[in-house]
């Protein structure tokens, strides 16, 4: 290597280091919305070629390594589709008999996850679909296993999802049988390999059995009802004798998921009877 010998730290080196450190600390203190906006702008311009390269590599990997699995999935889907029409008709009839409204089917979009090297990669995920594909901020993201998170930034050709491992994540949840409602959020003070969720705000009188499936309640309108989140592993702690916090193992692993589905809708509130009548 050419330089190096006899090289000493000059004032300009210290100055450059100082400027870079000040800018780094300024970036750390930047409000989240500004940081996301800046990141989105740079991703859509200067870093667009890099995102494009990774996106294509991911597509090639999928097409080469997972051809057999995809073919098997397609065959299963084709088999299931044969009986789908009959089941749908039967479901419609039964719902009609019970005077229940039809379940809304939300449009979804498949996207590749473009994993990065940073140790914090599992907290946010870069996705290969963006605004041009209909993705918007607030769209829920799911994997075949369960809920992954929520889109927090969308550019023309890519988007960023905040996963359930992010400290800011929260979702209104309900147990499988509907007996207990609560808020699901990530547990703090856990290692990355042992990250899990907590089901908070469950009244003391409501006991949730180990193994119970926890899913989105659909109450806040952010997530559609019924997306699996995780399974209860036990009681984590009790708060002042009025609330229990349950340990929930998430079904979807953001660090390993390679493909996701993005719900292309932002409001999942059930239509109120009054509004339904006014529409009629």
């Amino acid at each position, binding site marked *: *290597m*050419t*330089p*190096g*010998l006899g*090289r*000493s*730290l*000059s004032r*300009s*080196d*210290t*100055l*450059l*280091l100082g400027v*870079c*450190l000040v*800018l*780094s*600390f*300024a*970036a*750390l*203190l*930047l409000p*989240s919305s500004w*940081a*996301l906006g*800046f*990141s989105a702008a*740079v991703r859509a311009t200067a*870093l667009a070629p*890099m*995102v494009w390269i*990774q996106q294509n*590599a991911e597509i090639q*990997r999928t097409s080469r390594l997972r051809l057999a699995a995809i073919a098997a999935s397609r065959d299963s889907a084709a088999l299931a589709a044969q009986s789908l029409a009959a089941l749908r008709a039967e479901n419609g009839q039964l719902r009609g008999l019970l005077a229940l409204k039809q379940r809304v089917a939300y449009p979804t979009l498949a996207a590749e996850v*473009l*994993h*990065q*090297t*940073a*140790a*914090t*990669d599992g*907290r*946010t995920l*870069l996705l290969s679909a963006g605004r041009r594909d209909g993705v918007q901020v607030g769209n829920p993201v799911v994997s075949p296993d369960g809920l992954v998170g929520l889109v927090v*930034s969308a550019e023309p050709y890519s988007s960023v999802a905040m996963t359930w491992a*992010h*400290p800011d994540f929260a979702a209104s949840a309900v147990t499988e049988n509907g007996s207990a409602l609560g808020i699901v959020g990530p547990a*703090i*003070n*856990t*290692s*990355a*390999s*042992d*990250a899990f969720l907590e089901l908070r705000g469950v009244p003391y009188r409501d006991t949730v059995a180990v193994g119970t499936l926890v899913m989105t309640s659909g109450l806040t309108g952010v997530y559609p009802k019924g997306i699996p989140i995780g399974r209860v592993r036990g009681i984590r702690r009790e708060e002042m004798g009025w609330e229990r916090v349950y340990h929930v193992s998430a079904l979807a692993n953001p660090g*390993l998921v390679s493909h996701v589905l993005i719900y292309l809708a932002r409001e999942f509130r059930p239509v109120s009877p009054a509004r339904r009548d006014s529409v009629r």
Partner: protein
Amino acid sequence: MTITRRDRRNRVAFVIALLVAGHFYVRPWLENRIAPDLLLLAMLIVAMRSRPGIGAVVGFVAGLATDILTPARFGAGALSHTIVGYLAAWGRAVFFPDNLIVNAGLFAAGAWVRTLLVLLASGASPAELAGTLLVWAPIQAATTALAGVIVVMVFRNWLAIRLDE
């Protein structure tokens, strides 16, 4: 045949471009947590050929790119890469790494320290810090060092790296 300074600069730029493209193309084919960080490697190679101040700037730019692609804690990557880039350039001046093992050690240390600083700046819990730094970070540091050794051996003439025999 004489190689002009411009030719040498173009060759270094080509190797760096190759590493950056490889970082984004090779990544999906490998297990994410243990894959070599070729972007960090490119940054270290540039930093080790530069003055500490330039190393800090190159580190800042590479870290900012990392933050933009993983905005879980914006600024953590920029801060960690700035420090690692500065230390790599400074370390080059102190340690004279004209030896393959010392080069590998610098690459590995750079990768591990970068992960440590990212986790600290991200407010990771002690359990997460310990788990990542003791298991995944050393593996990634080792694969990055291995990739670095291969790059140094293949492009030693282009990068004008003199290795002790």
